[in-house]
Structures are given as C-alpha cells and as structure tokens.
C-alpha cells in the first residue's frame, strides 16, 4: 500500500454518524468504478459506488462527456444494472473500509423501497440519497425542486431504513432550505453538492454537444460556498465536495465545515494517492489532526 508511507505521522482518522473512517476522503458517487479500486487502496475512508436505481438503466446515448474550462459536463443518465444486480456484486467494492451506497428513485416509494433493500444488508454502512441528479428528466429532478419534496423523500427513507445512517445529497440551488428540510426529516448527514446543470455546444457543428452536469475544479468555489452555508445552518455533519483536486482543496472543504470530503472528477486526471499525501502534508505543517479541521476557520 503505497499510500501508507506518505501519510505517516499525522492523524487522518475522522468520525461521522458513529462510523470511524481511516481518512476523511470518500469517492463521489459515480466517479470510481470497481475496476479502478486497486489504484486507490488506502486512500479512501469509505467507498461509495455509483447510484443504483430500482431497475437497470441503460443511460443516455453518447456523447456523454464534454471537456470544459477546468471541468467537464457529463450526462451519463444513471446507467446502472439495477439494485438487485448491484447488491449481488457488492463484494467487489470491499476494500476493508465502510461501504456507503447511493440510491435514486423516480418516486418517493422507489426511494423508500431502495433504502429498505440496501440498508438491511450488513455490508452497507450508510445510504446516500441522490436527490439531485440533473440527468434524470422524471423523478430525480423533482427532488431538487424544494424543501417540501426533500422533506417528503427523506421522511419516507428514514422510516424505511431506521437503523442505518442516511445522507441526503443536495444540489447547490436552494441548498440551505433543502438542507434544513433534510435535517428536520431525519437525515443523519448531508452531502453537498452534486454537479451544476450545464450545457456545452459544438460551435463547428452548430449543435448541442452535452447537456448535463458540470463538475471538476471549475465548480469548487460554488461548492465551497454551499458547504459553508449549510454547515453554518444545520447541526448534522456534511460530506463536502465539488471540484476537490488537491490536498489543499480537501483542507478548504473541511475548514468550510465538511466532516468528510468527496473526490470525484479530479480522480480522472490525478492520482487520489497524491491528494491524500498532499492533505497529510497540510496537516503535518498545520500540526493538526484531520478531525480538528472541520469548521476551523479563524
């Protein structure tokens, strides 16, 4: 485990919702395939696979990704094999660290059924509700529509999965109101934020290239604000993310109030091992442990 040597001498461990994690880093849902897990051993404090849905989804036709300045727009359309096949394959994600599972339905009932299904499995440490995927025309989108919808879904999921920590993943639009709603409906933590709805155009062909969600370093300042605003509003912990690219970025999100930090798009262009190593260097210089950093803005 190449990471180990580079991160000795600092305390990277954090605790959230009664779960102890060896590092505060978590892969953002949909950005780490099981085929790539070998590359990141020791980096993440928990694993979080791509969102799963009640039935298999083929996803959107290509092109699905477009490069943008310091970022990318994706329109995957939640391609996944459906919750049953996903659960059959769950051991593939076992890296010896807690496993979080992301779910999305098109109705409140779907969400609740998914929560029940995945939370009853002993291998699942927590459930993340993807309330914000901008690529699903029906369903997903409606759940970012406002606090009332968020409250309804989270309430149903809370009842369906009473024993497992429940995270509500929110977009940046209206994030504070939605965060309050999710908290009061019983979410144990909030994930802030998902991609930002965006569009790319191919000027040469005069056609739309990809309509989807913007992610990557470009969105970092927007995500930092969302995390900061939410962390000052709610009492539950925050999983922060959006554009995290370096160890310094990890520190920034924790300072803004995040307890865990999600690394997504940047893992396509950097080795997450480096990000953790840089974060360790930051802590060493600051003379702090990871857990002390949350909200420690002066």
């Amino acid at each position, binding site marked *: 485990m190449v990471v180990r040597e580079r991160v000795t001498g600092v305390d990277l461990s954090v605790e959230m919702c009664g779960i102890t994690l060896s590092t505060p880093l978590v892969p953002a849902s*949909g*950005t*780490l*395939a*099981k*085929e*790539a897990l070998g*590359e990141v051993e020791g980096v993440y404090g928990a694993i979080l696979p*791509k969102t799963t849905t009640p039935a*298999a989804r*083929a*996803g959107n*036709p*290509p*092109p*699905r*990704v*477009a*490069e*943008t*300045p*310091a*970022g*990318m727009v*994706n329109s*995957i359309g939640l*391609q996944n094999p459906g919750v049953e096949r996903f659960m059959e394959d769950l051991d593939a994600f076992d890296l010896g660290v807690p496993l979080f599972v992301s779910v999305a339905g098109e109705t409140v009932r779907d969400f609740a059924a998914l929560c029940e299904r995945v939370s009853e499995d002993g291998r699942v440490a927590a459930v993340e509700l993807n309330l914000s995927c901008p690529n699903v025309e029906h369903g997903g989108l409606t759940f970012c529509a406002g606090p009332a919808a968020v409250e309804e879904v989270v309430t149903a999921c809370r009842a369906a999965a009473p024993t497992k920590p429940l995270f509500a993943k929110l977009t940046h639009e209206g994030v504070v109101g939605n965060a309050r709603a999710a908290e009061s409906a019983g979410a144990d933590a909030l994930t802030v934020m998902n991609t930002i709805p965006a569009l790319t155009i191919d000027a040469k062909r005069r056609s739309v290239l990809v309509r989807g969600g913007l992610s*990557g*370093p470009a969105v970092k300042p927007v995500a930092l604000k969302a995390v900061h605003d939410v962390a000052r509003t709610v009492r539950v912990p925050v999983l922060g993310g959006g554009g995290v*690219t*370096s160890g310094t970025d990890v520190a920034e999100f924790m300072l803004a109030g995040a307890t865990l930090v999600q690394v997504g*798009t*940047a*893992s*396509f*262009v*950097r*080795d997450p*091992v480096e990000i953790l190593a840089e974060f360790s260097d930051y802590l060493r210089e600051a003379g702090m442990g990871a857990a002390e950093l949350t909200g420690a803005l002066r």
Partner: protein
Amino acid sequence: MKFYTVEIEARRELGAYTLISYRWPGEKVEPGRFVMARAAGYPVTLDPFLARPFSFYDFEDGVASLLFEVRGRGTALLDRATRTVEVTAPLGRGFEIDASAGRAALLGGGIGVAPLKILGRELSARGIDHDVFLGFLDAGTAAVADDFAGASVATMDGSAGTHGTVLDAAPDLLEYPVVYACGPNAMLAAVKDAAGPDGLRQLSVEERMGCGNGSCNGCVVPVDGGYVRSCVEGPVFRAEVLAW
C-alpha cells in the same frame, strides 16, 4: 487515475501526423490498447482539463510510441511538448489474435492507422499473414503509409493511391477470415457491413472519454440491451457486439 511523467525519447513527423516515443518499463504492450495522455496536468495546469486517449502505435525494446493528429487544443499542446508528456499505464482491451484463424485484413482510416502498426508487428511475429489497407483524405495524411510496407492506399481526393475510401482499396473482405479495423465510427460501420457476419471481425472504436479506467461511464458504445464502456470493455470490440 495515475499519470506518469515520461521523457520524450524521439519525436518526428510522419506526413501530417506526429509520432512521439517514450520508454515504458511496464509489461509488453498489447496491440489495440491505449493510454490517456496530455502535455501537462496539475499542478502545472487544470486546463485543458481531461487527458486524451491514444492507441499505441508501436512498442519495441521497451520504447512505446504514439501517433497523433493535431485536432484541437489537447493535441496541439502535445505536439508542442519537447521534453516530457504525461501518460497512464496501458489501458483497455486490445485486439484478439487467433493464430489458427488464417489470413487477416487490417483496415485503417486516417489517424485510425495508429494501432495497425503494432498489430502488424505482432501478427508478423506470430507468423500470421496479413494485408494492410489504409484510407486517407489526401496525399498529405497518406504520407504515413510509407511506414507500412506493402500497404494499399486510398485517398478521398485521389491525390495518392486508389481514388475513394479504404474499402475501395481493399478486395472483398468476405474472403478474409480475420478483419481488423480502426478509424472513424462511420468507417467502422461500413467495414462491419462489408466484412459480413462470419469470422473474427474486430473494430477499434473512438468515443469521448472522461477517465479511461471505467469510472465515468462516459465512453460508451451501444450494444444489444444497452451501452458498454469502450475504455474497459474496448476500445476493440467484436463487430457483432456493436449495435451499430
């Protein structure tokens, strides 16, 4: 994704394309596999943001080479790189090789010639007979064919070789038990059509990629019942798998 900064061993122009080579200490490179490459990434820069996929052009004595066409900003910057570039380890699934299947036809369209060099080398090493057919827009891009001894060439403008597409330069593909092709997706579809359903028909596809290691689900191609990721299940597919 882990990127390695490698020194450029050699850089030369093959007609309209650029060839760069670097020492790759890893395992032997299988024909048809690719790398994600860029001039530089973080901390030097986050823009252009994504690395670009390139097939291996060749691999000999521990030196790997890439052949590329300057299209946009990423390839322009690669073309300017003088000292180092950043590459991943070899990725994806390459060409299946079946020594018992018989004579092979290799078809390349434009910069799609890239993986045919290393494929031809491997076939020769295994004593497998093969013919190479290369199609280009014009004589400028066709110049790379000099690096493919014995290849038949076609150009769309007739300025070199046969006037027409790569299929116009090739005999009836049905006569080949094995057909390999790489080029624009439209050409691959035409090859699939012309090569018929029987025998080993392998196409190296070209899709926009985010990650290159299966993580983003960005690079999919349509198959029966859905989409599969061309970076891990491809970029080389059996023709019958592709729902084109």
